[in-house]
């Protein structure tokens, strides 16, 4: 990448902000506040502690539901990918769960289990689980049988086989499930919070929607985008780089 290209991401952001500021000045409407106004609201929410509280609450829900969905989905996906009978038995159910609208699952969880934290997490996990299963199942189907035979022949125990032979092959699929998972889960969490919780970013967005406070809606959205970008650049990309260091 040339030196000029290094500045392209910052340049594109600057162009976007300038365009936004320009359009906001021309329209002069509370429906589209300028970036400067949104930044002001962001700062006020930050110093008041409201942003940290609601963002933190949502993040905890994200971490818990993401962890459960990834662990459970990986185990089930691996089992389905390696066992044709199991796969044939569950395949139709997987397609059904993939296509159930998120809203339906969320409402049913709240109706059946009450407006509780467990229902909220369960609703998010149910929505994300099929995606993880399908991705990891593809990875498990693509496992190199020659390497698995080598592991068997040299009598590697299950843990070593999983850790050193299977896991590195599943890594690209895990990263794909992680990235798509984060993108999907945080969107679902906001709906879950909007419908049945009294805290979190989704709850705040709902509140500001009722007040038609677009600046606050944008401030909270931007805060979440920053967090997701932070996760991508501080955790996922370095992890990717480290695990792929053996490639030429």
């Amino acid at each position, binding site marked *: 990448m040339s030196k000029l290209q290094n500045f392209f991401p910052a340049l594109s952001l600057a162009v976007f902000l300038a365009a936004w500021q320009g359009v906001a000045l021309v329209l002069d409407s509370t429906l589209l506040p300028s970036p400067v106004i949104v930044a002001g609201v962001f700062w006020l929410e930050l110093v008041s502690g409201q942003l940290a509280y609601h963002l933190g609450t949502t993040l905890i829900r994200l971490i818990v539901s993401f962890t459960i969905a990834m662990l459970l989905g990986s185990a089930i996906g691996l089992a389905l990918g390696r066992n044709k009978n199991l796969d044939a038995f569950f395949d139709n159910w997987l397609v059904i769960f993939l296509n159930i609208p998120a809203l339906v699952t969320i409402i049913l969880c709240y109706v059946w289990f009450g407006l509780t934290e467990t229902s909220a997490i369960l609703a998010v996990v149910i929505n994300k689980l099929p995606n993880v299963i399908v991705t990891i199942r593809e990875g498990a189907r693509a496992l190199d049988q020659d390497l698995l035979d080598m592991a*068997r022949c040299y009598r590697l125990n299950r843990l070593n086989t999983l850790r050193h032979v299977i896991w590195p092959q599943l890594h690209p699929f895990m990263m794909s499930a992680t990235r798509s998972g984060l993108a999907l889960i945080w969107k679902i969490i906001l709906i879950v919070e909007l419908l049945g919780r009294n805290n979190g970013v989704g709850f705040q967005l709902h509140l500001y929607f009722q007040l038609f406070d677009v600046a606050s809606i944008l401030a909270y959205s931007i805060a979440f985008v920053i967090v997701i970008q932070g996760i991508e650049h501080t955790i996922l990309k370095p992890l990717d780089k480290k695990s792929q260091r*053996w490639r030429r």
Partner: protein
Amino acid sequence: MTDIQIDIRQKVYPAVGQAAPHAAIANFELTLNAGEFVCLVGPSGCGKTTLLNIVAALDQDYDGEIRIDRRQARPKIGYIFQNPRLLPWRTVRENIELVLQGRDAAETVDFMLETMQLTRFQHVYPERLSLGMSRRVAIIRAFAIDPELLLMDEPFVSLDPPTARQVRELLLELWRKRPHTVLFVTHDLREAIALADRLIFLSPSPMSIAGDIRVSIPRHLRQDETEIEAFRRQLLDGAPHIKQLL
């Protein structure tokens, strides 16, 4: 060290689509004496790899048994596959250490790396190795576990002749220092004569033993091509049925 008996009454591949069931191996009985280097020689596709996979317990769908000293048991096996099957995400040394599963054998690994002239490359990932070097790593990995039986499935195939010769000599050097019972598969008779104590000739469809011949050339003369050629000619002239197989 122990004797190993291979007794495969029948191995049949089931019907697939229009193809009828296919008997790959029938009435195959072979005893490998402790420390013996045995070469299986037979035409391509006659079932040699199938046999090795059965012995390695990678294929368990057959009628027969593998015994150690007449007891039914699974020998500890070091398998050198045609394709080296190294884990690309582990360095040369890590690939070898993985099969040791925590056993502290740093000195053994160092010694083998040195014998196979790979010490310089021990921290390199397999993608950066040539095929010949990868094969040498696979050989070390197989020796490292101190196996009761070493299986080698045409480990020099698709190497250029000088590299194949170099790897072969390094293999023999390692085997002399650490003698193990070896079952070596090849379709190259000269290679088999250069390596083996015993040659087992295989006839195809279904695979069975067509000849069992001891190589009489002393080991120190095995590098002499004329000795090997003379033995080969004598063998083929004296056994036309084997000549037909090759």
